[in-house]
């Protein structure tokens, strides 16, 4: 219980702020010192009083002696006078008459002791009697000059008796005063002794108080501050701190803060170490990049796996060697120094060129040298990252060659197309021209010849259409066709297309329907190409819709402005599902060309696909219910995915 209490008190003490503790430590000895001073003052005044008493006692004694002496001398003088009648014997008597009252008055004032006072009253009385008897003796001697010596003898006897009484009274007083004086002296001694004791105790208590204060200070604060200092030193060295109790005063708070700073520092250190470790591991494991460091002179100081792989040197073979050994003979003398100088001046330097491996073979490298500087900006060395670009350089060269070849091939193709076009058209010109002349003169020909001419011109026109479509596709694929995109109002375009499409559909004995899109959407496309595709699809639908009733042309816009879908649908027999994937292939007419009724180049859909794609769109087919539905979309990127999905559904 008491131990717990003292522990609690100690805790309360340590929790007080330092200012409070300082005040207590300074105030405690001061208070003790003040107490000592007060008691010293009291003791000193008591001593003074006691000494005064002694002095007064001495004065009383002296006066009593004087009273006795005056009376004795006066009595002696009076006797002389009585015997001789010479006046000179009266001098002591007269002096006593003058001095006695004053001395007695002084005594009256000075005497305090009640016993002495009582004696003094007796003394006064006896003294008065003595004086009276002396006065009577003097008068007797003076008046009766002839008086009997007997009378004088009696008077002198009486005087003698009175003087004895006085003497005895004085002795009583003297004895009493001696007792009083002894008492006073004893008191003074007592007071002095007490004063000495008090002084000694004060000194001792003051010393003990200071010791206690120093003890409190040293055990409480100084000890804790020194521990804290030790912790601060540990913190400065980056070591783990000693656990200290965390009191509520300034030192306690400082302890807590120091602890936090240490924890934070440790955390940072751990992070840094982890990060450094990770970084080091990464660098070491990198295989595709040679990463190594150089000192300020260009001596290799570290080497990673990638560097080993690219350059062929092992770590221990290359550490401490100058990095110029990685350069071929023709650049070794100047380029390494130049690279370091550039890195030093600009922070980093990049270069691409030939380097040599350990075995002397060359590789094409991309090199970046970075200057490493400390926080004061002083150069520490360099980091060098080397990448083996040989393969890439080779493939770039191959790519360049391929590109040139492709360009040449494209040019050749264009040239070829142009020539082919010319070579095919030139004879056709003669065939069709003469055919047309014969048709004009048809009435001069026989029926058989008329039919033959008709067949020649029809076949010639078919051949021309074939050549046109083929060359169109080829030139678009060769990039020779010019696409001139513009913003086109879809509804207006469809109305224009109707004027061209309706006669085609009508000539096949079918109804033409037009579905205009909601709102007023527009597309970004080449107007002539777009119309060409629409007419192509409409022509196909009219051509292949046998037994149906209509061909419908229309368009609809995606709600989010993601493009416009054009469609051409019919209620004909549709496409055999097994042949849908061959629809857009050139010359593949799905066997329908066997029928005598349908004629075409077999290139229409292939050309349409090429045209739509050249405008960034998609074309597709969906089986109708019944019939066929061809569609194509032009517009934004969003269209692309949707079209793919729909194509999969189809």
């Amino acid at each position, binding site marked *: 219980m008491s131990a717990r209490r003292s522990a609690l008190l100690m805790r309360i003490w340590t929790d007080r702020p330092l200012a409070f503790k300082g005040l207590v430590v300074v105030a405690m000895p001061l208070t003790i010192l003040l107490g000592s001073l007060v008691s010293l003052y009291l003791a000193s005044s008591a001593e003074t009083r006691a000494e005064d008493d002694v002095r007064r006692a001495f004065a009383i004694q002296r006066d009593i002696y004087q009273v006795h002496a005056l009376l004795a001398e006066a009595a002696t003088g009076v006797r002389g006078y009585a015997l001789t009648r010479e006046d000179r014997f009266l001098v002591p008597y007269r002096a006593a008459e003058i001095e006695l009252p004053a001395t007695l008055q002084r005594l009256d004032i000075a005497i305090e002791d009640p016993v002495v006072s009582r004696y003094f009253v007796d003394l006064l009385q006896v003294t008065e009697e003595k004086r009276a008897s002396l006065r009577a003796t003097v008068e007797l001697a003076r008046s009766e000059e002839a008086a009997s010596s007997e009378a004088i003898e009696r008077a002198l006897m009486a005087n003698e008796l009175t003087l004895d009484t006085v003497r005895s009274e004085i002795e009583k007083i003297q004895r009493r005063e001696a007792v009083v004086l002894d008492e006073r002296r004893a008191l003074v001694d007592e007071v002095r002794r007490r004063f000495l004791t008090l002084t000694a105790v004060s000194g001792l208590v003051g010393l003990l108080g200071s010791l206690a204060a120093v003890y409190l200070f040293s055990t409480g604060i100084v000890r804790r501050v020194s521990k804290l200092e030790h912790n601060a030193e540990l913190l400065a060295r980056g070591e783990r701190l000693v656990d200290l109790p965390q009191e509520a005063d300034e030192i306690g708070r400082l302890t807590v803060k120091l602890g936090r700073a240490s924890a934070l520092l440790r955390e940072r250190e751990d992070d840094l170490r982890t990060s450094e470790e990770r970084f080091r591991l990464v660098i070491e494991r990198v295989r595709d990049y040679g990463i190594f460091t150089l000192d300020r002179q260009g001596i290799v100081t570290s080497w990673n796996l990638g560097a080993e792989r690219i350059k062929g040197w092992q770590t221990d073979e290359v550490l401490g060697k100058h990095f110029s050994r990685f350069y071929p003979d023709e650049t070794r003398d100047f380029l390494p120094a130049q690279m370091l100088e550039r890195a030093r001046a600009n922070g980093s330097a990049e270069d691409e060129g030939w380097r040599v491996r350990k075995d002397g073979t060359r590789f094409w490298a991309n090199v970046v040298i970075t200057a490493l500087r400390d926080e004061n900006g002083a150069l520490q060395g360099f980091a060098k990252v080397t990448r083996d670009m040989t393969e890439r350089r080779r493939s770039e060269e191959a790519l360049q060659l391929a590109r040139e070849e492709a360009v040449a091939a494209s040019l050749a193709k264009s040239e070829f197309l142009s020539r082919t076009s010319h070579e095919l058209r030139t004879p056709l010109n*003669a065939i069709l*021209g003469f055919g047309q002349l014969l048709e004009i003169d048809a009435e001069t020909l026989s029926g058989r010849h008329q039919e033959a001419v008709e067949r020649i011109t029809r076949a010639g026109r078919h051949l021309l259409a074939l050549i046109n479509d083929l060359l169109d596709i080829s030139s678009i694929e060769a990039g020779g066709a010019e696409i001139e995109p513009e913003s086109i109002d879809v509804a207006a375009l469809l109305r224009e297309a109707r004027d061209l499409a309706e006669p085609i559909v009508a000539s096949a004995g079918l109804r033409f329907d037009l579905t205009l899109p909601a709102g007023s959407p527009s597309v970004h496309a080449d107007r002539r190409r777009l119309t060409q595709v629409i007419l192509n699809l409409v022509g196909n639908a009219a051509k292949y819709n046998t037994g149906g009733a209509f061909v419908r042309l229309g368009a609809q816009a995606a709600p989010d402005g993601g493009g416009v879908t054009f469609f051409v649908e019919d209620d004909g027999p549709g496409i055999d599902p097994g042949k849908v994937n061959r629809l857009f292939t050139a010359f593949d007419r799905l066997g329908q060309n066997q029928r005598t009724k349908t004629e075409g180049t077999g290139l229409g859909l292939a050309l349409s696909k090429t045209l739509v794609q050249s405008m960034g769109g998609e074309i597709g087919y969906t089986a109708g219910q019944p019939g066929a539905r061809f569609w194509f979309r032009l517009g934004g990127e969003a269209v692309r995915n949707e079209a793919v999905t729909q194509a999969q559904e189809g």
Partner: protein
Amino acid sequence: MAVQLIDSEEILACRILAIDDEEANVRLLANILEREGYRDVHCLTESTRALETYIALQPDLVLLDLMMPEVDGFQLLEAFSRHDAADEFRPVLVLTADTTIQARRRALALGAKDFVSKPFDVIEVGLRIANLLETRRLYERLRGS
């Protein structure tokens, strides 16, 4: 042909020079022109002789093929315009199997007055020839007056 500004006899009397390296095509042109009634038609298949023939004949109209071996149509167009006086209007109708827009633009830029792609429509070619000749006669009439 709503308004006949020039007498058709006058047009049919015009001198026409047809140049094409392909014999069949030259024949076709001659055939067309003969049927229309033109009387002064000259044909040439060797383009190397084209310029001297042109200078010698001073034709009213030239029908010119573009793609020919040795000397092609473009070179001839340049040569003709170099030879003619600045105020001369001697139309050239280009007839070519080269359908590229580049060829069309180049020929017209070099002074060709009209351009028809092969294979052409016989009737259309006849009409274009008549139009060009009519324009030449009108021009000459303007200049003469």
